[in-house]
């Protein structure tokens, strides 16, 4: 294991929460005349967080890490401050740290109240890190909701013309889902209570005994909560709106790591705590995944807004994650997790590129664009790279995930005599190539558009190119050596085993 460097930093996980939190406060304080320097402060803190998150990869036991303190113990409740990182979360933590740093770098041109902007980014990072690291339902839920608020403000302050509608819709819709999930969490925690004490820690719930009916019922509650976040069709409509209106940085984080909270939750909570429930509803998970894959791909074709198209593609690709999980096999779950990571990297590139289109050209309407490759070669390169990675070009990271997921699904379908279901995946792969290529044909290639004024259009700036470049390198690196990620995921999936 090339990663096993045995680095140890005390309170590493807590630091991952505290550093961005302090950063958020410090950045927010850079108001008024100092706001020019806000980005440097934010950059420093996000870089520090990213470094810590990277260090986590090199710690003992492949990133498995624990911190635990008692928090509330009263009225028959026990909530604890437990942070835990394992193979499932370590990549997500790394991804969160990476993407926040990169969007900070990417957004360095932000001129409207930059202190608030970057503070919101860092605040979001706190929530994201918290979700992926907490091992206590109370803490988990808190962090889960904490991510909403910065995103709400991010969209409503820095968003597009329909930002109010989109922000409120995002906020309410996902909140409704969370509260339903909360009920599921209550059910889990209190059902597993022993000795009159309801312990909110993951471990306590794992020790609980649940009947099959209970598992099936509670699974649905939790699954709904997570499915909205992912988002699964038909609970997805908040996403295209949120993405279309959100600023680039917001979209990147939303698609890159926030959607993964849903799939993370399904694995971490639904599968770990409710294995029988998962088995009972396996058809539902698979159906949801399949529908999302095909529906999302089809919806992409009809979109005129580049960003909305990418948003729908996220739905399709997260459907892949769902499908992988739905196989309930080690391979499926491992590849699902890998797809979460892969999609995080790729979609970040896509949203950055779409954001650049909106920012540099002034419109993201595909019919208005055309021939941009001659005007903005670097932009064209990154866009093409992102699209190719997203449509699953072999040797890039997305392909392995999709290959693995569809193969696991093949195993499932084959052993259940439903091989024809594979056709849906294959159709979706084709459609994916279709909408990306069509979009490229209409935006990058062909005649240079005369529908918009291109005289002030300039290519990508250095920080933006740097952010995109780093992502592209990672996409290639993990594409050539997916085992580097599998090394983390495998032990976790192995421990999940029983399914």
């Amino acid at each position: 294991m090339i990663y096993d460097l045995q680095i140890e930093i005390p309170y590493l996980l807590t630091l991952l929460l505290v550093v961005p939190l302090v950063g958020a406060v410090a950045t927010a304080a850079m108001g008024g005349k100092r706001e020019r320097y806000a980005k440097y402060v934010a950059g420093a803190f996000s870089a520090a967080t990213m470094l810590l998150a990277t260090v986590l990869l090199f710690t003992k036991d492949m990133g498995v890490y624990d911190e635990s303190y008692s928090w509330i113990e009263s009225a028959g409740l026990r909530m604890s401050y437990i942070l835990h990182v394992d193979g499932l979360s370590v990549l997500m933590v790394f991804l969160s740290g990476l993407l926040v740093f990169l969007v900070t770098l990417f957004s360095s041109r932000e001129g409207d109240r930059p202190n608030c902007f970057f503070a919101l980014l860092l605040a979001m990072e706190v929530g994201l890190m918290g979700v992926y690291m907490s091992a206590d339902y109370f803490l988990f839920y808190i962090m889960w909701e904490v991510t909403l608020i910065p995103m709400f403000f991010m969209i409503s302050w820095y968003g597009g013309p329909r930002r109010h509608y989109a922000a409120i819709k995002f906020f309410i819709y996902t909140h409704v889902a969370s509260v339903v999930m909360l009920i599921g969490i209550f059910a889990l925690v209190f059902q597993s209570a022993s000795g009159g004490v309801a312990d909110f820690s993951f471990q306590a719930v794992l020790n609980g005994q649940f009947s099959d009916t209970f598992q099936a019922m509670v699974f649905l509650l939790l699954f709904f909560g997570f499915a909205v976040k992912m988002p699964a069709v038909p609970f997805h409509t908040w996403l295209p709106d949120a993405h279309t209106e959100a600023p680039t940085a917001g979209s990147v984080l939303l698609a890159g790591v926030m959607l993964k909270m849903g799939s993370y939750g399904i694995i971490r909570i639904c599968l770990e705590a409710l294995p029988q429930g998962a088995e009972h509803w396996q058809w539902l998970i698979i159906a949801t995944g399949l529908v999302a894959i095909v529906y999302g791909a089809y919806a992409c074709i009809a979109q005129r807004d580049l960003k909305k198209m990418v948003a729908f593609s996220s739905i399709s690709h997260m459907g892949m994650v769902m499908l992988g999980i739905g196989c309930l096999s080690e391979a499926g779950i491992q590849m699902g997790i890998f797809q979460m990571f892969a999609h995080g990297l790729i979609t970040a590139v896509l949203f950055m590129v779409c954001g650049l289109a909106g920012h540099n050209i002034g419109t993201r309407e595909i019919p208005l664009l055309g021939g941009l490759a001659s005007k903005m070669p670097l932009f064209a390169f990154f866009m093409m790279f992102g699209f190719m990675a997203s449509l699953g070009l072999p040797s890039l990271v997305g392909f392995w995930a999709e290959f693995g997921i569809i193969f696991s699904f093949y195993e499932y379908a084959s052993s259940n005599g439903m091989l024809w279901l594979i056709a849906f995946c294959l159709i979706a792969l084709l459609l994916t190539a279709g909408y990306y290529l069509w979009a490229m044909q209409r935006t990058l290639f062909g005649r240079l558009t005369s529908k918009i004024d291109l005289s002030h259009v300039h290519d990508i700036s250095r920080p933006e190119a740097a952010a995109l470049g780093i992502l592209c390198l990672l996409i290639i690196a993990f594409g050539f050596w997916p085992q580097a990620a599998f090394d983390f995921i495998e032990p976790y999936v192995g421990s999940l085993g029983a399914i």
Partner: protein
Amino acid sequence: MFVEYTWLVPLLPMICFVAVGLIGKRTPEGGAYLAIAGAAASCVISVLVAYEFFTSAAYHDPGYVTAEIEWFKIPGGFTLHFGYYIDSLACLMMLFASFISTLIFVYSKGYMHEQGAKKRRYYAEVSLFLTGMLGLAVSSNFLEMFVFWEIMGLCSYLLIGFWSFSHPEGDDAADNAASAAKKAFLVTRLGDVCLMAGLFVVLYSFGSLDYVRVFDAAAIHAVDQDMLVLGSLLIFGGVIGKSAQFPLLDWLPDAMAGPTTVSALIHAATMVKAGVYLVARCYPLFAQASEVMLFVGIIGGVTAFFAATMALNNMNIKRVLAYSTLSQLGYMFLALGAGGYLIALGIETGDHHLIAAGAAGYVAGCLHMANHAFFKALLFLCSGSVIHAVGTEDMRKMGGLHRKMKITSVTMLIGSLSIAGFPFFSGFWSKELVLETVMHASDYGAEGYLFTILWLLAVVTAFMTAFYMFRMWFMTFSGKPGHASEHCHGESPASMTAPLAILSAFAIGFGFTILFGFDALLSIGVEGPHHQFTVGAGEAKGFEYLSDIFGSAYTYLTIALVLGAIGIAHLMYNKRSVDAGRFNGGGESFVYKALTKRWWFPQLYDQISWKLGYGVARGVDFIDRQVVDGTVNGLSNAVAGGGELIGKAQTGDVRSYTWAVVAGVVLLFALMLALFYFIGGGI
């Protein structure tokens, strides 16, 4: 000692790709020398590897040599590897791909000289393209092969769309190129998706994708035969896409939108050959079932015929060549299909002779692939030379170029003779072998009669091939100069003509290798449930082929047809004593229209993709906006509207409040009564 360095073969072009991409701007000719050096080095290593493989007795026993490292694992006991697998087929591919590519790169230096800053992109992309092909050739397993397969797909997309923006000939041409590139990628993607499904079948059935583990008698026995057929057909689906076979043949003519050198690469050395390679590679799987091979043969025969018809009246010099490629690829599949059919029957019945006859088909297919690589590269480069000189692709504007471009015209004539199957040119040998195998196949099995039909199609195709090739040659080089020809300033530079000369030599001579042991080198293990046999097995038939070919009356028939076709072309387009318009009803006849409209394939594709793609997408989008999102918005509006409605009850008049209180009390009473009734705990 060289075989261990096989991995350098695809790696060197890869390094060139990176190097050209990063520093190409700073080197002369935008990285041309780097790319040429990379390709040449690959070629040299290929030669060394092949030499060692063919000469060293150590490799003869299993017929292959492989080495691999663990790449990654999929839980459930699936380990995927990365490595090389060298056998005679891989050597053949590796050799002609790297060799021809080197020549094409050299040629490009002259051809692309005026492209300025775009050169860097060009050389980077062709290097990557070559990586794809060489990697594909030496891959040790299906998945690795698939990776290179797709890299090649990407490169073809990029190169076909090389002029998809700021096209020197204007915006329409750019739009065209963009559309062609998309079409090429999407159609091949359709095949790739099938191929991927095939890989799933293989991986699931065999538990591995490594060639050594899949092409193993014991493993093949253990697998469910239905799944084997399914997997084979799906893999062949990928081939249909990549090699532009019927019915996915439409993208290749459009792909002419790229630079001519790219066409040469795609048609001769790489891309479309990958399909043929894959079928040849998967022979052990395919040949387990005669229906699979029959299918391969039918697709090949039909493609050969259809593509040839479309070339008959085309006026674009590159498109004619493109159709000829399709047609020749059809021959290859026909040969492989017929040979495989015989082998499959042989395996079923245990008849050694059938297997030996089938082996001839395999050899014929591979030989035709190699021959075609040389003469098609030659033809495309010649046409490039012409286009370079006259600045148009329309043959009607050419003519009389023979005097101005001597080398080009002669080499092109050699290429045309070779492809037409003129006796003793290399194309002749392989084509005759193909026809012979097909003829042979028609004698066996329940579906043998189908091969009779295919044979007829193939012979007619041979006739048409000779006709349209010479039509093209005459229209271009003989007769009166067209008005584009007048701009011609003479022969192309040496960097372009030198590769032409080298390729002509191969176009003439490579076919003779069949007499000197080509069939012996090309051996492949085919194993079946009842019988195991190794084709080739190192025993060359050598000059027996001469008696085989010239001992058959059919050979003379085809020779006569070819000569006749050349004669007709001469009369119609050189002497102009026969008016070509007589045969097409002045452009009004059904057949003529069908040919110009490419048998309506493009319209069909457009309609299907539009309806199934965009049409459905619009429906989904409508549902998404109106139904799914409509429900969400409707719910929220209902809540807000309900709030307003209930709020209206608050009239401000205190009496309405007292009413509410009293009504509340009454309702509470009613509620309590109801509860008592339903719960029944009470009084």
